């Protein structure tokens, strides 16, 4: 695992605040999975060239210039499925991004990937452009569940794939879902054991969310799918904490587990209230208290860029206090919680002043714990993180 230490981070330091981070949304998928409400197009690969042209135009609109490239510390290609385009398309994309945003030494370059897309050719291509962190959309390790989720890979394909990826990428992460209709606690525990056996540096576990306007929600309403019992979901989440914790993973964020030093630095920028640039449909950027989100529709974004209109769909300027409160919401997701000193330095507000009314009660109810230095969610608190966060807004 050479090179790892160079991308390792200590989330407790304020590195996240000086990091230059860029997110690029790649909105192409083979097929739209039933539970998914991300911004993407399926079966419209013909749009790729327009997308690429529009992307470079959006870079320019924001003042970026390939003749004066902007070095970055973290770069993240998300989707959609960034690995879905053809090899040549993907190469063109990676070239474009490299021209504008070359990696500073020690940078973290993450790409979300669909397992079956990862041919040797694509693996080599990604590695050639400096990708050192791959996030695999595995989602489940049981074939019937994969079918239900409308994913194209099979469980047996994952082990061999990981063997091919390990020597190439410094960090590989897999995503797993719980609370899938029909999934039992036993199934989930088996998946956790399997994933521990893979011995990866990073694992993300997500409770299935029933987004409105997805095929899953429609099927739920029609009674074709059963929503997992909330109590069961809670137990599954606790099981993830237990199994992965026992295997030496640090539960560094609500849904993320990493071997020490393998936390996703790009995401830590989000959770620490840092700035980041973002491009592509639905992409969201943050610059010193101003949050902007691009229009969600892929075609809407394309035509806006092409006709020279603004692609920003939603923008807000946070006043200092809202910004501070938002930071509490974000940092409570992290295992170290809100560190009082760092918080007041960053926001100008003393944590206790913002939390006067609610803190004592939340501590008493066992959802929060106070180490003196920091305030963070307890294990029970992690199950009810949104309720706790809402108290501080």
């Amino acid at each position, binding site marked *: 695992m050479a090179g790892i230490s160079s991308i390792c981070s200590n989330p407790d330091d304020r590195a996240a605040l000086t990091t230059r981070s860029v997110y690029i949304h790649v909105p192409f998928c083979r097929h739209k999975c039933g539970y998914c409400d991300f911004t993407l197009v399926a079966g419209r690969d013909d749009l790729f060239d327009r997308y690429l042209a529009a992307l470079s135009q959006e870079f320019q609109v924001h003042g970026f210039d390939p003749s004066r490239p902007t070095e970055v510390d973290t770069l993240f290609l998300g989707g959609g499925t960034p690995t879905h385009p053809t090899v040549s398309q993907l190469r063109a994309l990676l070239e474009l991004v490299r021209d504008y945003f070359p990696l500073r030494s020690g940078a973290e370059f993450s790409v979300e990937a669909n397992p079956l897309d990862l041919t040797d050719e694509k693996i080599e291509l990604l590695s050639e452009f400096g990708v050192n962190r791959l996030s695999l959309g595995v989602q489940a390790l049981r074939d019937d569940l994969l079918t239900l989720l409308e994913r194209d890979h099979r469980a047996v394909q994952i082990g061999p794939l990981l063997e091919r990826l390990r020597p190439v990428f410094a960090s590989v992460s897999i995503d797993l879902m719980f609370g899938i209709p029909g999934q039992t606690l036993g199934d989930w525990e088996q998946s956790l054991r399997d994933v521990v056996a893979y011995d990866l540096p990073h694992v993300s576990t997500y*409770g299935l969310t029933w987004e409105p306007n997805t095929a899953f929600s429609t099927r739920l309403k029609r009674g074709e799918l059963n929503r997992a019992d909330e*109590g069961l979901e*809670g137990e599954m989440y606790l099981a993830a904490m237990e199994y992965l914790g026992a295997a030496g993973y640090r539960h560094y964020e609500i849904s993320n587990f990493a071997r020490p030093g393998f936390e996703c630095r790009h995401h830590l920028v989000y959770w620490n209230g840092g700035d980041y640039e973002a491009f592509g449909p639905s992409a969201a*950027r943050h610059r010193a208290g101003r949050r902007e989100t691009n229009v969600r529709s892929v075609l809407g974004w394309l035509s806006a860029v092409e006709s020279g209109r603004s692609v920003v769909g939603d923008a807000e300027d946070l006043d200092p206090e809202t910004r501070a409160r938002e930071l509490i919401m974000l940092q409570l997701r992290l295992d170290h919680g809100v560190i009082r000193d760092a918080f007041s330095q960053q926001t100008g507000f003393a944590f206790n002043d913002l939390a006067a009314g609610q803190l004592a009660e939340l501590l008493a109810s066992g959802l929060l714990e106070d180490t003196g230095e920091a305030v963070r969610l307890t294990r029970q608190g992690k199950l009810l993180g949104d*309720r706790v966060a*809402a108290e501080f807004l």
Partner: protein
Amino acid sequence: MFDQTKIRNFSIVAHIDHGKSTLSDQILLKSGAITEREFKEQLLDDLKVERERGITVKARAVAVNYTYNGEVYEINFIDTPGHVDFHYEVSRSLAACEGALLLVDAFQGVQAQTVANAYAAINANLEVIPVVNKVDLPVTRIPEVLEEIESVIGLDTTDVIKTSGKTGAGVEDCLAAIIERIPSPKGNPKDPLKALIFDCKYDTYRGVITYVRVKEGRLYKGQKIYCMKTAAAHEVLEIGQFRPHMEPCEDLGPGQVGYIVTGVKVLGTIHVGDTVTDYHNRAEKALPGYEVPQQMVFCGMYPIDATDFEHLRDELEKMSLNDASFSFAADTSDALGFGFRCGFLGMLHMEVIQQRLEQEAQVDLIQTAPNVTYQLVKTNREEVFIDNPQEVPDAGSIEEFREPIAKVQFILPSDKIGPIMQLCADRRGVYLTTEYLGPKRVQLTWELPLAELVFDMYDKLKSITQGYGTMNYEVIGYRPADLVKMDILVKGERVDALACIVHRSVAERRGRAVCKKLKEEISRHQFEIPIQASIGARIIARETISAVRKDVTAKCYGGDISRKRKLLEKQKEGKKRMKQFGQVEIPQKAFLAVLSTGEEG
């Protein structure tokens, strides 16, 4: 001063929705008080709650000039509300007039409040002019309606006026009848001043505005006046008339209606029903004044934010200046803190006052479920009235529990007699009489416990009769009944503000309904919440609100942050409108759950 013989004063009375305010619009138009451009429907309904609900809740007095046979008349009229809950507005208005226009809808005919308001006008010795209104309707029953007016109310309909507030037809005839038939006001302008205060309102800038009808003497700007009951002296800074907006004038003589501004900002020195006289030349005897009506339903009103208590008191005082028919007294509840016990003439009255407090005074309220006033005879023979279930003593110290009984008149299509009889019987009613008003319309009289009547009988009646049934009632006394206090326990603790008084025979059904409703209203917490209904120590119903086991957003990446923050902020905002009881947050609406009867489903 206007020639007294050319003044006419009348009120427009009718059943709800029979077109009083719309006809008022026409009178304003025809007299030139407003132009076509200023016109808007039901112009006099200017409270927000009136416009939202499309009903009149406050009587409105207006002065217009109208030329008839070449002579200019001053016509003072009052548009009154039709709903039974605002009957006090009507009776006060009638005391300021010599005549009344009784409007009857040309299709609906005589309804319960037509009868009640007609009798009120007749008993006040007014000249009552029957008017068949809405004659433009595609379907009317004018001959039968005339028949009903003759037989039920006993008014001669030979010269009946037919109008349409919508098209303006017949409005001139109506004005002519007013001038011909209503006597001009009596009263000697030289006598000491006597003016009846028939309404009041508080204006933030000008203080108390007093609405008066001059009976004797003369009222003028700059006069020093004296309120006879409160023994308070004031100076008249401005007087004027409503045309329909406040318009200053120099003086007002017998028969005239207008307002006085004294600049008084402290409440309590001006009372509706009091008589205004001249400070230096006082009248000997005050005018009769008004009987304050009996409140029918009581509920608690508590500010959501405890620090609003004093503010709420001020606002209640101002509101009671504008509506003397509701009462309030400071009260406390373990669950809700400091607040007020308020009495109202009915459910609509209660909702309207609550809405006016929230809209006009911007106080957020928690309101407890309404109840009627009970009478208790204790084992020590002491008799007490109870308008708050919290105050019911232990069953052991109660000798007799009595409830108010109302005599109710229903007017309905005869094919709906069966279901209404059944409903009244189910509600422990005592049947009295059936009278046919015509071949298809009938008046039923029942005695019903007030508690079985005030909360939802009106809605039930409307739905059973498809809107064609109406009712009127008056309380006739108290009778013993097998009543018990039902407590509600939330997470094992009694919530005083949720207690209610129920008849033992329906206690279990009510208990189940209330628990079920509370389960819907109270959101899940991080722990289980048992909800129980009990009588004494005996649990009669139970529901459990399960605990939230997991509530955390799985993904919170770049694009999710704003969305999630807004979502949680909204949640937090919602919680502000809840009341913390122990560890449980109870939303505003839950306190009304006690009204659930469990009658259907």
